[in-house]
């Protein structure tokens, strides 16, 4: 197999986080990575915890359940919020990757028009959907705490 042509990532992790003067899609990219890593960390623990039910152990429910502590509830809410963003932004990324909503190729005539301008309505629509899902989850979360 031929070797891949590689370029040094001299900025390292800062290369991901340094949004600088990029547009909002750049910040969505950073947030997508952060939420993805957060969801993965939770998911790996979630597999271990929920697998205990095979032996009749339910750490997340019942009187004085270990995972019923407020810190875990807040963590769970953060994971839900991360999912709302990551899922809807992920749909946008897949659509763009497959060539949808990027516009048709045009002559590069000054003042140049970026493809990002064509993509932005899709980004905004996905963020609105994520916000609606987040709002419904927030209602459920506070409703659960009040019970």
């Amino acid at each position: 197999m031929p070797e891949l042509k590689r370029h040094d990532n001299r900025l390292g992790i800062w290369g991901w986080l340094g949004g600088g003067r990029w547009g909002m899609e750049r910040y969505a990219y950073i947030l997508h990575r952060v939420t993805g890593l957060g969801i993965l960390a939770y998911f790996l623990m979630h597999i271990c915890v929920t697998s205990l039910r095979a032996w009749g152990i339910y750490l997340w429910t019942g009187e004085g359940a270990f995972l019923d502590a407020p810190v875990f509830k807040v963590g769970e809410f953060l994971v839900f919020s991360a999912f709302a963003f990551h899922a809807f932004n992920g749909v946008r990324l897949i659509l763009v990757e497959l060539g949808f909503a990027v516009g048709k190729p045009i002559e590069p005539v000054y003042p140049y028009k970026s493809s990002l301008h064509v993509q932005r309505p899709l980004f905004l629509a996905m963020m609105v959907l994520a916000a609606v899902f987040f709002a419904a989850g927030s209602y459920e979360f506070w409703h659960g705490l009040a019970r």
Partner: protein
Amino acid sequence: MRETKYWTWFMAAGLLILALLGLHMVVMHLGSLTHLFAAHPDQPSVAQANSQARDASLFFTLSYVVLLGAGLFHGLYGLRVVVFELSLKPAAEKALSALLLVVGLGLFGLGTYAAFAAHGRAAGASPAVASVAGASLAGRS
């Protein structure tokens, strides 16, 4: 070419997760709004009785296994892509790939065993739980 194939699987797994994890989130976190698949609507979605009712359903058991596989591939491959961007040495990349493969297969084995064991316990130990779950899935409760 191989990486292109993995990347395509990564996107396909993302869409599968969107559907299955979306359902999971609606059931678990919007339960008081939707009461979807709640065999015991008077109790929270995470209550043991509701957990066991879902475990008794073959649909939920199979969906957990598919979600587990898709989630592990999507998550661990995503982590691999992110870490590889840090310009690791080829030997380190190989070691990381092997480690992620072992972790992924190990957790998939554990989760799959647990899903089927919990299904067996819930469906076998208490036929009433299974019948309530079945009624709920059919939209009768």
